[in-house]
């Protein structure tokens, strides 16, 4: 499937193309809330492909809030490394910042002031936390999105909006300029309308960066595998429709791959381990928001510090408060061994066992355990029920393994996505896999804003 980026850069653009693009984007955005910021100057970079950033990636001079009231008015004085690299390449033009769950805390995109809506039907959730990135990718014909995954925030919304969502190996893409959720888990990735575009963006932004000590994975491979593994202990988590459709996918894939069922033996506690580690880290990352240095500014600076601080921090959303409280509890000395240390051990076991299996083949699973829910439906879910929907996306995220989501079926007009996981630093093999799949599958899009 040809790259939209290459096609766009080669094509003649009519006079006023970018102005018209911005106008129609504004119009669509009023319905779908995909963007928090739309940059009117997108046309001033010359012949360049529009790219958006999730609102937790710093863009110099552009209000970057991570979807939080606490950061209202925060204008970073620097670009994230990924933004710098895309702009420096001369092939990309910044079009805006996309909507998200506050600080990345969410699976459906509803932990936002105005939740993004599914590009296929606005009564349905967009998925989260990179909700706006997925919706934007499904709406704009020529556009790529920088998104972020901590525990599945690229895979889930990409799957629910029928786009390609690629999360690289942890440490291949610099996180400098990414507003932290959980530093040992956060990864910047790409959403695009096909695999080629994901590859081009990945190549433009990856590689060592002196500003991020964890960004140290240099060589990326493309080792093709003949085997696909289905994880036995996760099978029961998918609902009936998902299972039926996924089994259809396996039938199609079995023509080219040997499909085997395996048991890892630890993945059914991956979600618990993930939330413990992620909340512990998040609670420290959110400590700095105190209402006077940047973002939200309290008017009266003359109150006592404790009261000032309490007043400022009341402005976090409900989920953020929950994670601060739980994360702080988890870190406390009296329960650390019980939760944090144990979760870290589970993580180590998962990395080891998955790593061994992934040497032999890819792991394949549905990206999401249920059909896309309506916005009104998820409001009734408890936090734990919501966390449980991360069952397929958490394992590769916990292990820092590269994974990619692609649409494979449309059920009642809504896309369904599958996820392929690869071994560390074998990212190209996953992009190749989707490239191969695209040869036999027709992506459907409801919107094609910016068509030429």
């Amino acid at each position, binding site marked *: 499937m040809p790259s939209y980026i290459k096609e766009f850069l080669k094509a003649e653009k009519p006079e006023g193309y970018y102005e018209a693009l911005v106008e129609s984007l504004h119009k669509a955005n009023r319905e779908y809330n995909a963007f928090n910021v739309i940059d009117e100057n997108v046309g001033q970079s010359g012949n360049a492909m529009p790219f958006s950033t999730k609102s937790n990636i710093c863009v110099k001079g552009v209000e970057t809030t991570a979807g939080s009231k606490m950061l209202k008015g925060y204008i*970073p004085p620097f670009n994230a490394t990924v933004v710098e690299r895309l702009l420096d390449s001369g092939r990309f033009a910044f079009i805006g910042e996309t909507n998200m769950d506050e600080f990345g805390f969410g699976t459906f995109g509803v932990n936002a002031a105005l939740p993004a809506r599914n590009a296929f039907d606005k009564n349905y959730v967009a998925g989260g936390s990179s909700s706006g990135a997925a919706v934007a990718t499904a709406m704009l014909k020529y556009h790529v999105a920088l998104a972020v995954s901590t525990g599945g925030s690229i895979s889930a919304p990409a799957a629910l909006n029928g786009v390609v969502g690629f999360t690289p190996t942890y440490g291949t893409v610099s996180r*400098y300029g990414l507003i932290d959720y959980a*530093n040992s888990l956060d990864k910047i990735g790409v959403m695009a309308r096909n695999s080629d575009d994901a590859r081009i963006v990945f190549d433009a932004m990856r590689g060592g960066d*002196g500003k991020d*000590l964890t960004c140290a994975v240099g060589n990326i491979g493309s080792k093709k595998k003949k085997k696909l593994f289905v994880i036995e202990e996760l099978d029961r988590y998918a609902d009936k429709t998902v299972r039926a459709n996924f089994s259809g996918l396996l039938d199609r894939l079995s023509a080219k791959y040997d499909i085997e069922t395996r048991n890892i033996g630890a993945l059914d506690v991956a979600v618990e381990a993930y939330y413990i580690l992620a909340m*512990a880290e998040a*609670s*420290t990352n959110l*400590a700095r928001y105190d209402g006077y*240095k940047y973002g939200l500014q309290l008017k009266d600076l003359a109150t006592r510090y404790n009261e000032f601080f309490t007043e400022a921090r009341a402005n976090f959303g409900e989920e953020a408060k929950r994670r601060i409280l739980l994360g702080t509890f988890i870190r406390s000395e009296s329960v650390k061994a019980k939760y944090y240390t144990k979760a870290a051990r589970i993580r180590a076991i998962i990395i080891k066992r998955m790593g061994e299996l992934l040497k032999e083949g890819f792991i394949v699973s549905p990206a999401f355990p249920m059909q896309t829910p309506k916005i009104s439906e998820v409001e009734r879910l408890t936090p734990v029920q919501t966390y449980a929907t991360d069952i397929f996306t958490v394992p590769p995220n916990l292990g820092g393994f590269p994974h990619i989501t692609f649409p494979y079926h449309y059920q009642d007009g809504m896309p369904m996505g599958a996820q392929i996981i690869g071994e560390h630093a074998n990212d190209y093999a996953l992009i190749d896999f989707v490239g191969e799949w695209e040869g036999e599958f027709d992506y459907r899009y409801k919107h094609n804003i910016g068509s030429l």
Partner: protein
Amino acid sequence: MKIGLEVHVALPTKSKLFCPCSLDDAEPNTNICPICMGFPGSKPMLNEAAVESALSIANALHCRINNSMSFVRKVYFYPDLPKCYQITQMDGAIGSGGYLDIDEKKVMIRRVQVEEDPAQIVREGLLTLLDFNRSGTPLVEIVTEPDIASEEELRAFIANLRSILYYIGVDINKEIKADLNVSCAETRVEVKNVTGIKSLIAALRYEVARQNALVKAGKEIARETRGYNEKKRITESLREKETEDEYGYMYEPDLTVFNISGMRYVPPVYVSKIAEELAKGSDMSPKTIKEMTMLDRNSLELITKLKGKYKMRSIIHAIQRYKKYNEDEPRQDTIEKMISLIDAGKLLAGDAVHAIKAGRSVSIEYARLNGPEIDRVILEFLKANPHVLSEYKKRSKTANLIIDKIAKAHGLHPKEVAERLALILKRHK
């Protein structure tokens, strides 16, 4: 009595610990960047010069040093802490389980850890101002076990620590900063942020007296954190001691596990040991040599080079003479010339030292005056300086000054002047 110390040492680097900002003096809030201001999206880098310096300290304190180290976040809310957590070290510290020798005893070192300094709080009237120039300054914290048992040991510990740090190149011009733990009975009381050896000793004395008085009165000593009030010279209760629980220490994921196995460090110099060696078979005590060289690398090198070639007493005397009249460090050839003159019985005054330093020849010939002539010179001097006599009556050492001045002014042998002066002074008594 059990005393433990947490000594904070600022490392002599040009830039901050986690960002490239300069550490030079500057207008408030000008040496800052998104990293040391804790801006969302920023990430720490690691200043390798600071790590090398810390490694040198850990090594000099005989610490166990692993191939890698890691950092933790110490979370507490205070306006001077931009991220509301301090990046410091715990289990993954650069060094642990070491010791420092003080005379006959080893003081165990629990940990040597690298950490960042918070911003500076400046109070101006009703205003609380923050200067982030200091934020991110590299510090090393040296945590001892409560092995120090007396004021003398505390002094010795600090003196030896200063010497070790000096030879590693850690600037100790600034006063020592430390937290002091004192337990006279069972309860440990922490005295925070004491600056300077004088304050440290005063805080210790006050705390010992306070705790002993409480014990005597049958009262309980509260487990607490106290501050030292420099003006009143007392310790004051600050707040109930936070338990380690409340800091919520967590591994710092942005700095990863940092490999230090191939890093350079400065080899340690233990002056106490070297002084023992140098004093062996010499006419000087190890104590004198130690005191002279603890914070003086040049002297140590000179003594080491010249040992055996000259008498130790002459070497020491020459260096002391030189230092009396000069700010700079002596060269070896200057000291050797001085030694040969000293050994020839000549008392070297400032002029002579300067002449030797400048490479001019100094005559060993003395003016030839007979007894009465010397007496005349002495009497003239006493007449011109009547106060010296009354001073002499108070302090007989004043005689040395008089001898020095007269011998220098007339090119006389100090010994001759001394003999005649003794007779004259006898008459004046």
